[in-house]
């Protein structure tokens, strides 16, 4: 019978394997609900960009990794992308949610793609490119996914800096896309201008 590892054991495994390449110490949150107080847990692992793909591969040493989605945040000087997984999925009670994340500086907004390891990540990687202005190197499909021409290339809705949508939101009644008659089609192209994703130099100048 399979031996299921706990959230603490999974965190320790990442701690030992990626020593010196971690952004923060992996940590576990465990919750107990209901009358029987059955425990279930989630693990957060943040590794440096150069070992990010290795960390995603390491997750495959645990049985049944199931990818769900990637979330992303603008942290100020850096952009963070978190990929949420579950290991021991379909195990009737032993699943552990594992989040593996990495960060990149805004003057080099690139993170490696996980699509060679988990084929299901492509839609969420497309979404991260268009919403965060971060290039996913090695992405299998470079087109936008959700955004229309209403959001011009170069505006990234989840960015909290000058590349964010604040100006666009304030002027929404002026039809910022310059669509003329107000009609626009879905964008079927890269979320980045020809030079690549927006580079924010340290000191604030774009």
């Amino acid at each position: 019978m399979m031996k299921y590892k706990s959230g603490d054991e999974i965190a320790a495994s990442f701690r030992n394997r990626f020593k010196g390449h971690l952004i923060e110490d992996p940590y576990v949150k465990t919750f107990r609900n209901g009358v029987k107080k059955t425990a279930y847990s989630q693990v957060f692992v943040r590794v440096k960009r150069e070992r990010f793909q290795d960390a995603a591969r390491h997750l495959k040493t645990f049985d049944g990794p199931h990818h769900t989605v990637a979330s992303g945040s603008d942290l100020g000087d850096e952009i963070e992308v978190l990929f949420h997984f579950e290991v021991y999925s379909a195990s009737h009670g032993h699943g552990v949610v594992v989040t593996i994340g990495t960060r990149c500086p805004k003057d080099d907004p690139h993170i490696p793609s996980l699509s060679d390891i988990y084929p299901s990540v492509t839609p969420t990687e497309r979404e991260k490119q268009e919403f965060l202005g971060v290039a996913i190197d090695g992405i299998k499909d470079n087109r936008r996914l959700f955004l229309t021409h209403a959001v011009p290339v170069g505006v990234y809705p989840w960015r909290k800096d000058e590349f964010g949508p604040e100006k666009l939101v304030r002027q929404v009644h002026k039809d910022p896309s310059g669509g003329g008659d107000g009609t626009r089609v879905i964008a079927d192209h890269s979320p980045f201008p020809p030079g690549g994703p927006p580079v924010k130099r340290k000191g604030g100048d774009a």
Partner: protein
Amino acid sequence: MAEAPPYPLNIGPIHPALKEPTQFKFVIDGEHIRETDFQPGFNHRGVEYLGMKRNPLQVLHLAERVCGICSAAHQYVFCRAVEHAADIVPTERGDYLRAIVAELERIHSHLLWAGVAGHELGFDSILHYTWKVREDVQDILEILCGNRVNYAYYIFGGVRRDISKEDIAKCRKILSNYRKIEDTVLSIFFSDPTIIHRTKDVGVLTHENAVKLCACGPLTRGAGVKKDIRFDWPHGAYGDMMDDFKVVTPETMGYHATGDVFSQIVVRIGELFESVRMTEWLLDNMPSGPITSEPNLSALLMAKLRMAEGEGVARVEAPRGEDIHYVRLKKNKMEIDSWKIRVPTYGNIMSWLTMFKDQQIADIPIIIASIDPCIGCMDRVTLVRDGSQAEVDWKVLHDMSIEKSRRLMR
């Protein structure tokens, strides 16, 4: 001379088998589909962006408007993500009442889907029958929450309304009606020759692809993968039900898990009546006590949510599959710092595309409908003018609104 095959065929964005905007781009050779591409985004509302401008109590009501059918699932999972971030523990009775509404929502959603599937097959008497019996579960939801959709039932730490003894009796009576029709519904869906001919070996998702492409919900269970968040990650009251209930797959219903549309029908109809039994179990075993751990909303917002620092992931098994929210809160910041929603349809896009391979054009509607898609969930105003694909912006809408007002004033 006409161009040689294959030919492109666009379906959507208006009413591609379902009344929601999304576009499929097929490459066809004769009657057969060779390639498929998918374009969402026609109705993206920027819900996450809006959420990051609001405090958690405000977002609670925004979250349930992500979807009109699984609105309880979104509110439930958002509550739990915030609880995980802010270390709020729900009460035991709250956990049970949450699960009751979640299971009732599954009953109404699966009945709604069963009707749509019948309609796509040209079998409208099924649509009329399932939507008629769906009214009963809507009545229970109205008794519990005061509303048929957008229940506003969940709150951080529990739920907002308790259930009285009289209402429990009413719920039991309605649930017993579902028990009475179980055999009829099973025989309609599992034995009718039209349904069998139109759904067997159609839109197959293999077990291998279901695992590789991380499909979720009844779609993956139809392929024989026993993924169900209620049992995999036993949160809330579901942790107490682990011994009494099992994941519903075609095998548990006495069929082979072939991953075709018929397998999905078997899973959804099986789950529908399993949810009836689960709701009865929850009513039987519900503990007494407070329904929420923090009834004072000011204290909840100012003392707990505003002072919280942390992040949390939460998942629930929505009727259509896995619904996951990620939330990050910062101390002394009223607004949510980061929020990501992933709805079940989003997780099933990649699997969907493989299901069309080498299928016939006439099967496109039922394959589209088979995963029970919710584009409104995934996207977040669309108009066809002169047959061209176009989107309406604020100015055009505003002009239309003025025009209509003037017309009415004449």
